[in-house]
């Protein structure tokens, strides 16, 4: 009821602004909590506007009424205890009235208990992508897990070389999929620095703290695609790690799970296949552009002081084993992360091959290639 009123008033106000009114206010969202938060927001907003109208009204009136030209004789009163008590007590009461609903809503949000039939998804922030692990869904012997990377191509953001797409910076290769009308718990953490998982339509924003878990529980009422961002400064590509959630019906969700399981089986077959260098190079090029270029740059030149160049790197050119190890394990204490979970065997082999055969490395280095089965082998030896 209250939030309908809020919306209506906002709608009126919006006729003054040129932009669409949705663009100037908090989204109402698609969960009970987000609607409650919206109502709370509008309520405080109107309270402060009302106080503002009173205070500024009085101030502007005094400014006008008591200009020197209208009032030559200033009064000389210095205090008035009754008045002072009044304007201490009234704001106190207003604040108490605000604190009560706010505290109640907060308490609801803080109910973190798992629910019957709900699902738990571990959310892991990485520089600069999100990993989602469905803790109750097994694929093979591991929980279903995938990474969600930005798909907006650099041509759109660097120097605006091409027209921007509709969901510029808000599109990913693999959205997280959840069923509607189901309690979903996000168990949020991070692999490196602090990120923050922000989904405006659910009124969820929780920091991803490395080594700790923050819980956010939600229940989406309407199917749809929802977009959000990382909201904690996490390094240079902080603006480039969006979140996309696809809320679907239970049936669609189950079907999606099945496709994930099928894909896993397909992959096992692919690692057996005979690969040509060209095939590896074309997969590798794409992987490099989306996963590596952010740091090591598209031309492999790196950024001095931050990221080493891969073009001309001794490891890349001549030390296949070490490079595989770096990509599989990451380099501890640096931003070079492990890609073992992010890339499958084919992709891993391709990207290594790509770095070894690009930017002149093919001429100065040993020119060898890495095949998917090498990666499978590495994994077997490792365990």
């Amino acid at each position, binding site marked *: 009821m209250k939030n309908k009123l809020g919306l209506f008033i906002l709608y009126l106000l919006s006729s003054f602004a040129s932009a669409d009114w949705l663009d100037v206010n908090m989204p109402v969202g698609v969960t009970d909590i987000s609607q409650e938060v919206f109502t709370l927001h509008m309520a405080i907003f109107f309270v402060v506007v009302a106080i503002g109208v009173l205070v500024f009204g009085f101030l502007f009136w005094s400014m006008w009424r008591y200009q020197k030209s209208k009032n030559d004789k200033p009064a000389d009163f210095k205090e008035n205890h009754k008045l002072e008590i009044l304007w201490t007590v009234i704001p106190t009461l207003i604040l108490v009235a605000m604190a009560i609903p706010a505290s109640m809503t907060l308490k609801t949000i803080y109910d973190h208990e798992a629910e019957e039939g709900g699902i738990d998804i571990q959310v892991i922030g990485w520089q600069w992508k999100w990993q989602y692990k469905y803790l109750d869904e097994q694929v093979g012997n591991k929980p279903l897990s995938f990474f969600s990377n930005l798909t907006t191509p650099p041509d759109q953001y660097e120097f605006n070389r091409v027209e921007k797409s509709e969901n510029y910076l808000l599109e990913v290769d693999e959205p997280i999929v959840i069923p509607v009308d189901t309690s979903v718990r996000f168990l949020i*953490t991070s692999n490196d620095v602090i990120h923050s998982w922000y989904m405006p339509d659910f009124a969820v924003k929780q920091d991803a703290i490395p*080594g*700790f*878990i923050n819980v956010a529980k939600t229940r989406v009422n309407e199917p749809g695609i929802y977009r959000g961002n990382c909201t904690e400064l996490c390094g240079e590509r902080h603006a480039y790690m969006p979140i996309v959630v696809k809320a679907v019906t239970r049936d669609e969700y189950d079907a999606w799970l099945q496709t994930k399981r099928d894909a896993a089986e397909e992959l096992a077959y692919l690692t057996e296949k005979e690969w040509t260098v060209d095939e590896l190079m074309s997969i590798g090029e794409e992987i490099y552009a989306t996963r590596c270029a952010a740091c090591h740059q598209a031309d492999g030149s790196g950024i001095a002081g931050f990221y080493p160049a891969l073009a001309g790197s001794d490891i890349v050119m001549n030390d296949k084993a070490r490079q595989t190890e770096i990509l599989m394990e990451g380099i501890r204490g640096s931003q070079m992360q492990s890609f073992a979970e992010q890339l499958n065997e084919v992709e891993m082999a391709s990207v290594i091959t790509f770095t070894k055969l690009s930017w002149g490395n093919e001429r100065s280095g040993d020119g060898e290639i890495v095949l998917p089965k090498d990666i499978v082998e590495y994994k077997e030896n490792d365990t």
Partner: protein
Amino acid sequence: MSSETVGHQKYYVPEKSSIPIVFAIATFFAGMGAANAITGNGSTMLIAGMVAVVFTMAYWFATVTRESMAGLDTPQLNTSYVYGMGWFIFSEVMFFFAFFGALFYIRSFSITWLGGEGAKGIAGDLLWPEFEAVWPPMITPEQSLLGDQATTVGPKENMYLHSLSGALTWLPLWNTVVLLSSSATVHVAHMALKENNRKRFNFWLGITVLLAFIFVILQAVEYYEAYAHLGLTLSSGVYGTTFFMLTGFHGMHVLIGGIFLLTQLVRSTGYNHFSDKEHFGFEAASWYWHFVDVVWVCLFLFVYIL
């Protein structure tokens, strides 16, 4: 302060002076040098800067002393010094407050949560299943995850009081005795000075300085033990971190306080500076000393015993 106003005589305002700007430049080299040294770019600048800082500071204090001996100080200026020193010590208290705060937080929240207990114990359950919430932790969460053996053999030997029977061979106890008695001796020295008994003053002040340096030596021994035999180092997890940072900063303050007191001793024996009424330099040093002592008592309680 009461709201009563303060008497106002002619207040000594020094004329232009080049000490501060020299000091600022010295600080520049010290700061820049320290950063260079830490990032592995050599420590020449740091050493030069520190030498310059120490010399300018010494010269500055000497100047103030000279002015004071020349009778430029009014009681009002002395009051300024008293307040100034008081609030300086307060700022030091707040510096230690930050580190104690960190210790409390780590002990009561982060270790607990990582160990799977408390409001956010889910972190331990999901991410560090093998880690247990005990203080002091002998093994870090990371080691527990990798299945590594603890590298710290533990507080059983030295750092941490594990049984009353071992108390007598326990270094921190002796450190406490040394420091507490130095607080007493500095007080005795002060009493002596107030009675204008210079001999006794010098004697007790000398003892205090001696105790200060004994403390520093004992602590060095303790650190050596920790590194050489207990595997407790700065980088062996939060226990090492909090242990060395808290005791280390305290130790540094003991050293500074000791030098401060030594300076007063030299002023008294070598230059005959103090009188029964006028001895603020010594008083400031002794306040500083009591402050260092109080910090130790807190350390002893929260780092060693509890």
